[in-house]
């Protein structure tokens, strides 16, 4: 079976005028289903850049990425959406929920775009919102939800879509410790249970214990790797 994500010598250089910034430098790694991976490192170390490339929304300058065996580095904007549709969901620091749509409508919109049958998606959206603890607030608009609740909607949205890969960039960045931790625990439990491959970039050392595997980044490179002893 193919690994969820395989990168080889993945490099991203941002060129702004004459200044070049090597944001990610020759990253080679393999990530598997059922793994919850933490991407840690100081600000500017390249976490977000790496995550964007893995998520097929940013083109690498060099190197290759395989998503379930599909080499995506050569693909153009007509085929890439299909890869993203099939394999990838995101959770962002800023939640990025449509303010005009209720919690459940935000989840359903993604399910529709992912091409999931309407009868199935209704039930699935309800189930997941219940699992993340929002059964009472499914029909609330984002403005009527707290930050932690909004992020739980985003988690439900990412998981409902059945994408095998879930990428989260600073998902606790806008939340206090308790709420952040709660969201991360929900994400972890569901991911393990459903054998997803989850990659989370974060500054927050206090949630290290959530991860099965921790990749430590610095200056665009992975300088250290820790695995949970189990």
């Amino acid at each position, binding site marked *: 079976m193919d690994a969820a994500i395989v990168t080889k010598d993945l490099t991203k250089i941002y060129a702004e005028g004459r200044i070049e910034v090597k944001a990610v430098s020759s990253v080679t790694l393999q990530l598997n289903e059922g793994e919850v991976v933490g991407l840690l490192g100081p600000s500017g170390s390249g976490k977000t850049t790496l995550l*964007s490339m893995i998520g097929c929304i940013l083109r690498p300058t060099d190197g290759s990425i395989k998503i379930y065996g599909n080499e995506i580095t050569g693909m153009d904007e007509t085929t890439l*959406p299909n890869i993203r549709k099939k394999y990838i*969901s995101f959770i962002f620091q800023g939640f990025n929920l449509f303010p005009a749509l209720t919690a459940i409508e935000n989840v359903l919109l993604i399910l529709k775009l*992912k091409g999931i049958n309407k009868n199935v998606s209704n039930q699935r959206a309800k189930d997941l919102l219940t699992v993340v603890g929002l059964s009472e607030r499914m029909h609330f608009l984002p403005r009527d939800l707290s930050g932690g609740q909004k992020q739980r909607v985003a988690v439900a949205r990412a998981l409902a879509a059945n994408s095998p890969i879930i990428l989260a960039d600073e998902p606790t960045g806008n939340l206090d410790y308790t709420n952040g931790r709660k969201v991360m625990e929900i994400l972890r439990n569901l991911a393990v249970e459903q054998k997803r491959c989850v990659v989370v970039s974060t500054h927050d050392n206090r949630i290290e214990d959530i991860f099965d595997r921790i990749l430590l980044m610095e200056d665009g490179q992975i300088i250290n790797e820790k695995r949970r002893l189990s």
Partner: protein
Amino acid sequence: MFYVALKIISYDKVRSFITLLGVVFAVSLIFAQMGIYLGLMETSSIIIDHTPGDIWITSKNCKNFDFSQPLPEYLYYHVLSTEGVQWAEKLIVTWGIIKQKEGGTEQVEVVGYNPDTGIGGPWKMKIGDSRAVKNGNFTIVDDSAKRRLGDVKVGEYREVLWKRLEIVGISQDVKSFTTAPIIFTSYRLAQKLDPNWIGPDKTVFVIAKVSPKYSVEQVIKNLKKRLKGVDVYSKESFSMKTRLYWTIETGVGFSFLLTISISFLIGMLIVGQTIYNSTVEHIKEFGTLKAMGASNFDIYKLIFSQALINALLGYFMSLIITLLSVKIYEATEMVMVVNMWVNVLILGLTMLMCLSSALVSIRKIKKIDPAILFRG
């Protein structure tokens, strides 16, 4: 997608209301301008369109119904004896001065027709009979002329071109395009009213009816071969020529076109800027959809749905406003045309206006920078 677009629109009620108001304003103006224009055009050829017969023979280079030159009357007999002509009739259209009861004068357009056949005469009478103008100094005045001529009554006398004429009937629906009221007399009287211009041996038009077995084109060809120094038109093309004359050569059409275009542009700007703002405000959400596999096309559908909702809501509100205001127009003796074709045309224009205005947002979606998604 339509549902999501509807939710987005109804979320920001104030903005959506203002946008809708803009669309309704623009589209109602287009309705009114187009309706009035078509009404005027209908009026400009109203007598041609209501006169039986298939072919109109006019003086050379005649530009329209209202300003034609006299023709020798014997042409009528030539027309009558041309192959394929079933019947022919003469019709005079000329200008006159009418004395007002309380002093002053008004210009009138005098139509002289044969009262025995009624061809070219009034097609709908409010009071009296169209044959009543026969054998005497009689006239029929249209009901719509009351605004200019005061209260005209059957039995009264009015002086037209220094002849006292008795009003013997009131016609209906013969609205005047030139604003000079239309009055009818017998063909013979019309010749005598202005002896220097028309006179006893002249007509202005000859109208012909094509025999059942002949085609109009064929008979026009026959007539052109036979008659020299005249123009020969089918009824439809003479009607169209008259309309085009007023549309193009007087600048009337241009001013309507200008107003319609400006309304269209205003509507486009209002919708365009609302949709653009909304797109910019939702750029992170749209980017998130893209990051999870939505194609650009999926998101265009969402944006165009918003435009479409604006178009449809705006259109139907404008239609209602227009239908209500038609009644007001009728009260002022003006004609505003609102028919199936106008409705469909304006629906198309409204859609074009709203959808094309959404195009500016397309570029924004195509070029979403993934970096913005990650900003807290």
